[in-house]
């Protein structure tokens, strides 16, 4: 909560103050012109997505950047290929939320609540962007401690410009990387909407999501992806837990999915649950959203390589295979058990495939991805069709069944199926003891530990926040509002007219 107060103070400040000047350059010796050999090496580093010959220190020289003679500062340039790719990916990940997820969820609710879902997605987009600019990016991606980044390092995008930040990518502009990661920060809370659709007050959702970003998302993202995060197995040799999570199995899907379950239990069921007909008002929109999610997810998964290199290529491939297989297996399971494969089954299978492959995509082989696809088609299906019925919680659009369950088995299967043949980084000094390329490699236990930490943070954080919001402004709209529909009641509009 200290953070929250700080944040509000900073908001006001930001609109007045110009960002502080760049850190004054220390007195380093002037650089000498790069040799032909150095220049060629740097060009090769560009193609190979390798470490740069020169990245801002002045002792080594390169021409791939601009050198300010007066200030004696060399600012590395991004490369056109990686930057193009990363901007494309950032746009694709935004597309996943607006309109992808908005349609996927919006199609599944009843006609009278479709706009409320769209409004919630949109609200989160704006609110998270503002948070990200003020402090979020800094808290996640600046170095700090194992739990959280430094609050002021990149606050107000100070020092975040078009030059790459070598901690995350040698050849992609840092501001592009920041925008790319922003899109993740946007979609994650938006996923929660699925569990609590059709029955949460707009103002309550606003406050909940605001606090949730600070309490759950930023710490979790830093722990897994921050350069000094305590669970960043690949980049942080001093990580407490040597877990890996390529594109957000724990950070995105587990946090949102488990928080969604908790929040939906605290909220209670929708009016008429179990009696009235809650069929999707438009399976067509839902399917359109699914297609957009799939396409956008390439930005999510292959883009997480932060380069269009061999790892991105592999992630692209595994994402396709796992998703297609899961989109096939789920409706086949329905066909067998229920007599008919449904379009909702195809859609759910595809999304489940995407979720489960997310943490694994950059670490497993094509055949590993096919295996993951089979699990992704069966286990979440079982949760949505059977387990939910047994327990009777009202996970309206199956955020828990798909994202929490999917994210969790994804994190686990990543441990089982990660192979250094798929990603050379797994053979690095920091990881090679954990990845022995067998199903019971030590990595599995690291993944279990990361799962445990994530569960604790997501569940604990959500319980606390939900009760605060309940106390402050209440969680549910009036009974009449819920029955009339949130669209008219909360937004004064209807989804369709005439």
């Amino acid at each position, binding site marked *: 909560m200290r953070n929250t107060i700080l944040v509000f103070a900073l908001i006001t400040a930001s609109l007045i103050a110009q960002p502080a000047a760049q850190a004054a350059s220390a007195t380093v010796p002037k650089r000498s012109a790069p040799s032909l050999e150095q220049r060629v090496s740097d060009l090769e580093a560009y193609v190979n997505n390798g470490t740069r010959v020169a990245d801002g220190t002045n002792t080594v020289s390169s021409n791939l950047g601009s050198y300010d003679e007066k200030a004696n500062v060399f600012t590395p340039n991004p490369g056109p290929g990686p930057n193009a790719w990363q901007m494309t990916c950032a746009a694709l990940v935004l597309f996943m939320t607006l309109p992808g997820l908005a349609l996927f969820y919006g199609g599944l609710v009843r006609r009278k609540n479709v706009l409320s879902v769209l409004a919630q997605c949109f609200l989160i987009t704006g609110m998270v962007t503002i948070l990200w600019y003020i402090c979020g990016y800094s808290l996640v991606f600046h170095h700090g401690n194992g739990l959280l980044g430094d609050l002021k390092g990149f606050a107000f995008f100070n020092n975040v410009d078009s030059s790459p930040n070598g901690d995350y990518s040698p050849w992609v502009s840092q501001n592009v990387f920041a925008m790319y990661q922003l899109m993740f920060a946007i979609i994650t809370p938006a996923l929660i909407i699925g569990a609590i659709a059709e029955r949460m007050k707009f103002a309550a959702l606003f406050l909940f999501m605001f606090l949730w970003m600070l309490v759950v998302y930023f710490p979790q993202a830093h722990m897994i992806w921050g350069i000094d995060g305590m669970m960043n197995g690949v980049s942080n040799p001093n990580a407490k837990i040597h877990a890996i999570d390529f594109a957000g199995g724990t950070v995105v899907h587990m946090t949102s999915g488990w928080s969604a379950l908790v929040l939906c239990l605290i909220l209670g069921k929708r009016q008429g649950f179990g009696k009235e007909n809650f069929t999707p008002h438009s399976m067509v929109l839902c399917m359109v959203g699914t297609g957009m999610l799939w396409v956008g997810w390439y930005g999510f998964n292959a883009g997480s390589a932060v380069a269009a290199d061999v790892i991105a290529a592999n992630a692209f491939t595994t994402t396709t295979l796992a998703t297609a297989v899961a989109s096939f297996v789920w409706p086949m399971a329905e066909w067998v058990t*229920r007599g008919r494969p449904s379009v*909702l089954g195809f859609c759910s299978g595809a999304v489940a495939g995407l979720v489960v492959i997310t943490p694994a995509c950059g670490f497993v082989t094509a055949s590993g991805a096919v295996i993951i696809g089979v699990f992704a088609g069966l286990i979440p299906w079982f949760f949505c069709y059977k387990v939910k*019925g047994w327990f009777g919680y009202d996970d309206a659009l199956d955020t828990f069944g798909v994202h929490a369950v999917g994210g969790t088995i994804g994190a686990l299967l990543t441990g089982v199926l990660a192979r250094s043949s798929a990603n050379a980084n797994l053979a690095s000094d920091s990881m090679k003891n954990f990845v022995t390329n067998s199903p019971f490699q030590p990595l599995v236990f690291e993944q279990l530990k990361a799962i445990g930490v994530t569960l604790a943070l997501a569940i604990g954080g959500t319980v606390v926040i939900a009760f605060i919001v309940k106390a402050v402004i209440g969680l549910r709209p009036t009974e009449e509002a819920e029955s009339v529909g949130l669209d008219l009641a909360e937004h004064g509009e209807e989804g369709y007219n005439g």
Partner: protein
Amino acid sequence: MKKIEAIIKPFKLEEVKDALSQIGIEGMTVSEVKGFGRQKGHTEIYRGSEYKVDFLPKIKIEIVLPDGRVEGAIAAIISSAKTGKIGDGKVFVSDVEEIIRIRTEEKGDAAI
């Protein structure tokens, strides 16, 4: 003058319309309704939640016509709308006191 209201299965509309045309009935008004009756809706399991679809889509046809033509019309409707399966629908007949054609302001049988 009488009004016939017939509730039928949607996919029979074309046939009923043709049958009525054949006996010279060329005016009617049709609307989409939901029916609740002996024919029970299916039970759906949607993502694990079970619920019953009570209301089934039906078509309501309204025809106003002179007393003398009622019998023929009913016969045409029944023969074209019948499948013999539950849910085929009903025909209701009631009295109409006056008819006016808006365009010409003709009244009574002339207005039909």
